[in-house]
């Protein structure tokens, strides 16, 4: 039987709300969306093919350029996988500095995601506040690592540079300021009646649907699934990490989970800085032949690298699984379906924080 479709509306690839090219095709009945399909393929660069056969010194920088927003975690997962293969020990000071860099990266990524959402629902004031806050986090990242975006801070056996005493004090002062401002902005988001109209009860992803689509990261945690790879990471276990979970399942919950995680990241950075031991920041070791599957928690969810190296430290085989693809699936099969208007489609799509660059690589 032929399906009755009023209009087939394509959104993208060049769209004011999307940072990156993706195409969402919506089948609508009146204003109600009854089916959606996401078309990818505008960003395929074949980065895994470039990586094969190259030494780890080159692949390390290529791994960072899988995704520019969450570059630190790509670096961290690749380097920690190499360390697991070679049995390289990391000094305790370097372990804590890695967590500091990773959490700063998570903070700026979550602030950017919440900025995009507020920009999409046309709340530009809050969006600009959040973007201003993000610049302060980028300053801290730059002071720690020396670069704003692709910083290559971690290397096998440790980190590249130490944190100075004055930078440490600056970081404490800056984190206090960021926290007080963020409390205010989170309150604005929580209590804003117009924001609630655009966010509460929209883009529902039930727990069963989230399990079915294998949703990860804040998208899954907003649907009541306590899944977080950081709970299996030894340094985070020492810091007593527990994932943030909400049960509202809508756009509002996804944004609030991100806000809560930023507060959690601030606490983790403070715990790391106060527990920082004196000592070396880089140990020794060699990268040897081996094969491993290693996961870490990116700002968007679980990130997995499958790596096979030869005895010279060259990467023979590499496969990357990035979190966004599962969230995009969850988005087009559950969250968008039943949206009351086309305007909700873009905001729901952005609330899942899809990163097209790392989805297609």
């Amino acid at each position: 039987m032929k399906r009755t479709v009023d209009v087939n509306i394509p959104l993208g690839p060049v769209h004011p709300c999307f940072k990156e090219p993706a195409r969402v095709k919506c089948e609508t009945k009146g204003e109600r969306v009854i089916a959606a399909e996401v078309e990818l393929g505008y960003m395929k660069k074949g980065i895994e093919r470039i990586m094969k056969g190259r030494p780890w010194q080159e692949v390390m920088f290529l791994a960072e350029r899988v995704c520019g927003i969450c570059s630190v975690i790509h670096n961290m997962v690749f380097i920690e996988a190499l360390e697991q293969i070679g049995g390289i020990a990391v000094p305790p000071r370097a372990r804590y500095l890695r967590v500091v860099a990773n959490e700063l990266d998570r903070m700026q990524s979550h602030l950017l995601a919440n900025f995009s959402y507020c920009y999409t629902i046309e709340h530009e004031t809050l969006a600009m506040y959040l973007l201003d806050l993000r610049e302060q986090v980028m300053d801290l990242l730059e002071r720690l690592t020396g670069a704003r975006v692709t910083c290559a801070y971690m290397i096998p056996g440790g980190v590249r540079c130490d944190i100075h005493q004055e930078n440490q004090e600056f970081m404490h002062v800056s984190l206090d300021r960021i926290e007080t401002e963020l409390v205010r902005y989170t309150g604005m988001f929580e209590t804003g009646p117009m924001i609630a109209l655009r966010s509460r009860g929209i883009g529902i992803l039930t727990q069963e649907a989230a399990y079915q689509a294998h949703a990860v990261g804040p998208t899954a945690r907003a649907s009541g699934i306590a899944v977080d790879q950081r709970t299996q990471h030894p340094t985070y276990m020492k810091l007593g990490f527990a994932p943030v979970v909400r049960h509202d399942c809508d756009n509002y919950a996804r944004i609030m989970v991100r806000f809560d995680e930023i507060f959690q990241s601030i606490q983790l950075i403070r715990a790391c800085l106060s527990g920082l031991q004196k000592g070396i920041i880089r140990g020794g070791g060699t990268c040897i032949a081996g094969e491993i599957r290693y996961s870490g928690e990116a700002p968007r969810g679980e990130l997995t690298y499958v790596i096979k190296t030869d005895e010279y430290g060259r990467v023979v085989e590499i496969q990357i699984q990035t979190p966004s693809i599962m969230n995009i699936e969850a988005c087009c099969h559950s969250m968008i379906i039943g949206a009351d208007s086309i305007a909700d489609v873009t905001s729901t799509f952005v609330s899942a924080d899809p990163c097209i660059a790392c989805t297609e690589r």
Partner: protein
Amino acid sequence: MSILQTIKNKVRSRSIHVSYVDVGSCNGCDIELLACLAPRYDIEQYGIFVHNNPREADVLIVIGAYTHGWEEKLAPLWEKIPDPKAAIAVGNCPISGCCFNRRGSYVDPPVSKHIPIAAEVPGCPPRPTEILNAILSVRDSVFADWEVKRR
């Protein structure tokens, strides 16, 4: 120079609409461009307005190493922009392909093979101030006296 041209120069120097298109980057330059919107850099104080509609844009910012998905899309997009117009390549990728321009990859840099590029901002990624500087330099060199230069 005619009075009309003087008025046009004056108006154009404070009203630049920017559209950006990502033709296969790692997102690093993307977020540095978004950071230009932040109150710290405040791109709108120069009269530059960033949105993503090519039909009313003056400046097209191209990011990324030109993947095959854009073969039939980037040139028509460039056609849709009304004159006077300029394209700026931001980052190393549209200039040389950067680390993606290797054997086995699916990219086809540089972007200047496909559309005319007026300014290039190297860097992986460049800082927001450098992107801002490039847009302002294009304003002075391309848009000022555009009718006179065309003749």
